[in-house]
C-alpha cells in the first residue's frame, strides 16, 4: 500500500523551516521585478531601449523575439548555476535530519521497506525544487509573454532540464549524506561537481594540453563519469534560443550517474545497522 507519509512530511518540513518559502519568495521577486520594473521600448518589432528599475540597459539592434530569447537564456544560466547551488544547499540537510539518532529508529521500526523511505525523502526534496523551478520559469515566461507578446515555448520546457540537473546532483548529495550522515559533505561533493563541470565540458580543448597520457585518461574518464551539469545548462540555452539539441548522451550519462548514486544509497541504507 502506498503511504505518502515521509514524502508529505518532507514537504511539510520545507514549509515549516521556511526553505520552501525562501525559494517561493525569491521566485516571486524575480517574476514580480520583471513584470513591474522591466520596460521595453519596441518600434516596429525592434527593441529600441530597455529600462530595468529605471536604469537603461544597453540593447543591440535586436528584434523583440531575439531580445526575449537572450534574456531568458541569460536567466536560465543564472538559475542553472547560482539557483542550482542554492537548491542543493537547502536540500542537503534533508537526509542527515532523517538519519539522526532517535529519529531514524522511529522510521525504521515501521512496516515499510527501507528503499521506500529513502526514495520518498528523495522525491520529496526533488518535488519541492521542481515546484519552485516550474513556478519561476512559467512565471517569467508568462510575464515576458504578456509584456512583449513573445511566447517562446523553449523557456518553460527548459524547466525540465533545470530540474533534471538538480535531480542528478541531488542524487550525489543523497549518496554522500546518507553514507557520511553529514549534509555539508554531500553539499561539498555536489558543489565541486557543479563547479568543475564547465572544465570537464571543455575536455576536448583541455585534454591535449595535459602533460601525460595518464592525466589525459583520468580527465577523459572523469568527464564520462561525472554528471554533465554544464552541458545540461548549455542545453537549456540551446532549447531557449531554438538551436539544435543533441543531448542524448548528456542526459544518458548523467542519468546513469544518478541511477548509480540512487542504487548505491539504497543498498547502503538497506544494509546499515542504525
Amino acid at each position, binding site marked *: 500500500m502506498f*503511504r505518502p*507519509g*515521509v514524502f508529505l512530511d518532507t514537504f511539510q518540513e520545507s514549509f515549516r523551516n521556511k526553505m520552501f518559502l525562501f525559494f517561493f519568495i525569491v521566485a516571486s521577486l524575480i517574476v514580480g521585478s520583471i513584470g513591474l520594473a522591466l520596460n521595453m521600448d519596441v518600434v516596429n518589432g525592434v527593441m529600441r531601449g530597455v529600462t530595468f528599475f529605471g536604469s537603461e540597459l544597453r540593447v543591440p539592434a535586436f528584434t523583440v523575439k531575439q531580445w526575449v530569447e537572450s534574456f531568458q537564456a541569460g536567466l536560465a544560466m543564472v538559475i542553472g548555476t547560482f539557483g542550482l547551488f542554492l537548491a542543493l544547499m537547502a536540500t542537503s540537510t534533508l537526509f542527515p535530519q532523517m538519519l539522526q539518532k532517535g529519529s531514524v529508529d*522511529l522510521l*525504521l521500526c515501521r512496516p515499510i521497506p527501507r528503499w521506500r523511505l529513502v526514495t520518498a525523502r528523495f522525491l520529496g526534496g526533488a518535488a519541492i525544487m521542481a515546484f519552485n523551478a516550474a513556478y519561476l520559469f512559467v512565471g517569467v515566461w508568462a510575464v515576458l509573454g504578456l509584456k512583449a507578446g513573445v511566447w517562446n515555448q523553449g523557456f518553460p520546457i527548459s524547466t525540465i532540464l533545470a530540474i533534471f540537473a538538480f535531480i542528478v546532483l541531488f542524487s550525489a548529495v543523497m549518496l554522500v549524506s546518507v553514507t557520511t550522515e553529514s549534509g555539508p559533505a554531500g553539499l561539498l561533493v555536489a558543489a565541486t561537481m557543479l563547479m568543475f563541470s564547465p572544465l570537464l565540458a571543455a575536455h576536448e580543448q583541455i585534454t591535449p594540453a595535459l602533460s601525460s597520457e595518464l592525466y589525459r585518461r583520468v580527465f577523459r574518464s572523469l568527464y564520462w563519469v561525472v554528471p554533465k551539469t554544464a552541458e545540461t545548462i548549455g542545453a537549456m540555452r540551446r532549447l531557449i534560443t531554438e538551436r539544435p539539441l543533441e543531448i542524448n548522451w548528456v542526459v544518458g550519462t548523467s542519468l546513469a550517474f544518478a541511477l548509480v548514486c540512487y542504487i548505491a544509497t539504497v543498498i547502503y541504507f538497506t544494509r546499515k545497522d542504525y
Partner: protein
Amino acid sequence: MIKGMQFALEVNGVSKTFRRWWTRRRQVRALHNVNFGVVPGSIFGLLGPNGAGKTTLVKIALTIAHADEGEIRLLGEFIRDRSVLKRVGYLPENPRFPTHLTALQVLKLYGSLSGADTKRVRENAAKWLDRLGLTEWRHVRVSKFSKGMNERLALAQALVHDPDFIFLDEPTDGLDPVARREVRAICRELADSGKTIFINSHILAEIELICDRIALMKSGEIIEQGTIAELTSARTGYELVVAVSDEIRNWLEEKTLSFTAVDGHVHIHLPDRASANSAIDALRAKNVEVESLVQRRRTLESVFIEKVGE
C-alpha cells in the same frame, strides 16, 4: 494473541558483532547466542548495565539492525517479513520527533506509517493524548515540549496504531513520579488486555514493580532469567531485632555474631533457622524481649549486582 502461539517474542541464538565496513576484524561483540522467549500478554523486563546489548537486541527485533546469526520471531512470524511490524509499537531511548510537527501530527504521521487506517489513528491519538495529559498541547509543535512531555508523546506514538507487542526502551526516563506511576498503570492495563510489553531498563525498582518475568543481560549474553520471585527466592538468612544494651553487645561479640546497631536496636544477622532459634532461646533466657524476626530475601538489586558484578 495468536491462538496456540507459545511466545510473542522468540529469540533463538542471536549473535551480533559490530565491525567497521572496511575491515573484517572484530570490533565490538554486542550479542552472543542470545536465547529467550516472551509469553503473550506478559510484561517482560530486560535488565543489564549500560553497553550490555539490550538496545541492540531490541533494534534487531525491530529490523533497525541486523543479526549476524540466529532468528527472531515476533507474534509468531519471522521478522524477515516486515509486515509483522504493523502490530508492533516501539518507544526508543531518546526519541527525536520532527520539530516542525505538532503532537497530533506526530501521532498521525507515525500511525499512518505503521499502516493503521486514518480513523483508528485519529481515535487512538485523541485517547492517548488525553490519557497522557497532552490534550491541551496537541496543536503545539514538539519543539516546544519539555523532556517529560516528549517522553509521554513517544509512548503515545508507540501505542497509536494499537499494536499487539510493544517495545519500551527506558520508558520512564525523564518522567516525574506521577507520570511514572501512570506509565506503569498503562503497561499493566495493556498486558491485562492481552498485549505483550517488553521493557528495556536499568531502573531496577521500575522493573521490579511491573514485570512478570525478567532476563539479566551482561556483555551480550543472557545470564539469568525467570520471574522476580524466582530470581529473588534464595533466602539469605534471618534478621532478629532486639533492644540495644551493653550486655547484649558484649554477648553478641562474645558469640561472634554479625549485627548492626540502628536507632536503639540491634539487628542480628543469622545464617539459618537453627541459629535463629538458638539466638532467640539464649536471649529469652536473659529476659531480652524480641522486637521482630524476619526472613531475609534477596532484592532484585542484590541479584543484579551479584550477577552483573561477577
